[in-house]
């Protein structure tokens, strides 16, 4: 509101001094998109969820981030070095990077920001990623001079940088200390990103304004890093709870860019007033199998189920033909996705029947847990049920509320098979870690697999990593702790007003790519 009043005053002044002609050139460009729920707050890494991270990601940056192929690239760091023993990381900071309040970033700010999220008093869940609770223990994180920041680990850990770059921690965002009040309470994010905080009307919308003094890296946009040459003055997210309403608003021209489903993408594809961007993401759609279940404890039954389900047909059906099967947990855009990861137990009903017979299966009920709240969980479960029944498996569908399904997932009990989706994991080892381990919720508890997975997270040698990932995938196919379907296709519908936007595998919006057509 203040901004609009300010703009009106400027235009009035320009007219008064006979410069009315420049007024149209000063009009602000705005791109409107939507969120299905309001942001949870403005404190990166603390008040957060997926929606909130998406908005925060425009205002904040960390020392490193993810590239298009999920490799780690410097962001606020100019470069970094890893000591020979793999324990010390030395980051050289970029010069001339400014915070939204105009001050220049120094190594002291980086140290303050690190302690804000990873320090003992931190309210962020991120501190547990670095305090030894989850394999990584940072023993020291110190500024050295104005442009060097050094982190020392107790033990070397290959995914340390990948953990630093996590989106849910805002890539361990570097913020100006004035982001908090004198009494330590949160004020507002004063980051280094291409956009800064604008209006936020809770439950209605959130706006970000372009940061004029943003110091972009050279080169093109690359994943969540690279050059960020934002040109749109204001990005506005309207809170729209219902997908059908977002679609209507896109058609009406009230929204410019909307995340859409496959059916809408197919509808808009031939419409000249709109464009659709479809991209495969690292979001993994799968069926988790409970190997502790008396029926599913027999690997032959699990293999039979895998042969009974056709991932190709299911993926094609839920994506209106846009998507394809990629049953490996490692996403196809990963550098570790090779011919080995492309293999899976193919659809073969006869083989499924033979395996069932061999296992002595006599029609025991196998229940598929699913929810209607989350995207296509239910549809995928329904198709799997039909295919399993086709192969002679007595499959039943149990539809529950999302909270109940999440509880079953966490406890690792109360289900035999469940339609599930994992958010993007941008390291091949983490792609297996999401369902492999000792914890109750993990579907794959085989000690050998757990050991291999842990090794994949420790090794810094790319060749060794590939070898471990290949072995893990082979074991995954043999033991079938889960039946992978594919990596979700993300669809974005755009009005003809905007251009330049592309989805990427991590599924986050990158508003700095947007251009408003003249």
């Amino acid at each position, binding site marked *: 509101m203040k901004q609009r009043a300010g703009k009106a005053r400027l235009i009035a002044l320009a007219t008064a001094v006979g410069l009315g002609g420049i007024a149209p050139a000063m009009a602000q460009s705005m791109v409107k998109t939507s969120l299905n729920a309001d942001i*949870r707050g403005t404190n990166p890494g603390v008040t957060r969820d997926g929606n909130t991270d998406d908005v925060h990601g425009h205002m904040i940056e960390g020392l490193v981030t993810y590239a298009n192929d999920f490799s780690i690239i410097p962001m606020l760091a100019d470069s970094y070095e890893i000591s020979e023993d793999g324990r010390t990381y030395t980051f050289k900071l970029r010069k001339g990077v400014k915070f939204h309040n105009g001050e220049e970033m120094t190594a002291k700010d980086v140290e303050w920001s690190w302690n804000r999220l990873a320090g003992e008093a931190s309210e962020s869940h991120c501190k547990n990623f670095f305090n030894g609770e989850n394999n990584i223990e940072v023993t020291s994180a110190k500024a050295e001079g104005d442009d060097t920041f050094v982190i020392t680990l107790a033990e070397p850990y290959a995914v340390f940088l990948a953990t630093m770059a996590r989106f849910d921690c805002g890539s361990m965002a570097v913020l100006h200390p004035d982001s908090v009040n004198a009494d330590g309470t949160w004020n507002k994010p004063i980051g280094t990103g291409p956009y800064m905080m604008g209006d936020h009307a809770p439950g209605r919308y959130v706006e970000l304004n372009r940061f004029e003094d943003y110091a972009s890296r050279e080169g093109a946009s690359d994943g969540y890093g690279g050059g960020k040459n934002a040109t749109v003055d204001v990005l506005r997210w309207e809170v729209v*709870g219902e997908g059908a309403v977002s679609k209507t608003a896109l058609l009406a021209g009230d*929204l410019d860019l909307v995340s859409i489903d496959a059916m809408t993408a197919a509808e808009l594809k031939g419409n000249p007033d709109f464009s659709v961007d479809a991209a495969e993401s690292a979001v993994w759609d799968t069926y988790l199998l409970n190997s502790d279940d008396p029926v599913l404890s027999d690997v032959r039954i699990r293999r039979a189920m895998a042969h009974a389900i056709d991932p190709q047909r299911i993926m094609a059906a839920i994506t209106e033909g846009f998507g394809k099967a990629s049953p490996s947990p490692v996403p196809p855009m990963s550098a570790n996705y090779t011919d080995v990861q492309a293999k899976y137990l193919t659809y073969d009903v006869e083989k499924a029947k033979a395996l069932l017979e061999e296992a002595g299966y006599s029609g025991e009920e196998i229940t598929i847990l699913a929810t209607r709240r989350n995207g296509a969980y239910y549809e995928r479960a329904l198709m799997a049920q039909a295919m399993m029944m086709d192969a002679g498996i007595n499959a039943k569908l149990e539809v529950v509320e999302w909270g109940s399904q999440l509880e079953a997932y966490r406890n690792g009990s109360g289900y035999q098979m469940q339609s599930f989706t994992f958010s993007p994991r941008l390291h091949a080892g983490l792609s297996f870690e999401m369902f492999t381990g000792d914890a109750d919720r993990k579907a794959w508890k085989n000690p050998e697999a757990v050991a291999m997975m842990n090794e994949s997270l420790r090794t810094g040698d790319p060749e060794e990593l590939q070898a471990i990932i290949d072995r893990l995938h082979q074991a995954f196919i043999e033991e079938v702790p889960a039946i992978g379907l594919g990596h979700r296709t993300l669809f974005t519908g755009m009005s003809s007003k905007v251009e330049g936007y592309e989805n990427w595998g991590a599924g986050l919006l990158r508003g700095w790519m947007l251009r408003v057509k003249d």
Partner: protein
Amino acid sequence: MPTFVLKRVLMSIPTFVIVAVIIFALVRALPGDPALMMLGGNIDDEATLRQMRSQLGLDKPVPVQFVVWLREVFSGNLGTSIMTGQEVGSLLWQRFGVTATVVLLAMGSALLVSIPAGLLAAHRHNSRTDYTIVFLTILKLSMPSFWVGLMLLVLFGAILGWLPTVGFVSISDDLGRGMVYLILPVTSLALSEIAVLTRMMRAGSLEIMGRDYITHARAKGLPERKVLWRHVFPNAFAPTLTMVGVMLAGLLAGAAVTETVFTLPGLGKLLVDSIYARDYPVLQGALLFIAAVYVLTNLIVDIAYSFFDPRVRLS
């Protein structure tokens, strides 16, 4: 009347205590862990989950949680939202303001249409006018509100481009723009209410029109308009008013569907979101607030009833 009001207010205290117990028990009986929901489901470590539970006070025994909550409620503190950190009390007021604006405008518009329509249908009983009115109300009643809302958006937003499809501007900030954003949700809500209230008004009027005193009024030569407005309307409206009270309380408690379709930041939307997020403080606060809205609305309707039906005396 003051005695009646005082009595009703005192009677509502035990109601609130019972409601509070039921709300707390039901909310805790919901499957799903709020800490887990808050962390987005994909939990990377147990320590984070433990920390979150402790932060939310969920690591204490349930009876202790109840006593703590009740004590805070009686001291006027409904807590803070797990999801947004906002104070529940102020959040409810903010959201209630939006809902009340839409609902009261819709109810006002609905009454302006349904009273004359119901009277007219009864007056022209079994005529083409009556059949048309009855047909239209049945047609509207058989359409789901979600679908009607979407169709209004598609027609007036996407096809004609006359009205905005998303967003909301408070009328206290900008009356003109605020009203533009309210046209579709108010119309959508009013259409549902018109259908019910017209049918109630028609049925009530038909019953009254068969009474002796109406025949007497006509026999003494009163013009038909006077018969309708002076004798039929006040008597036929009393049962409709009861329905208005029930509908009003229900809608003020949250017109969730309308608020979702028209992206209104109202109480109903807040309630639905808090259920999905297992935001206990907001959920409990909202349900208590809704109970208060019901009690208050029904009290107002009871008082108003005596003005329309002289046989009812407040005592």
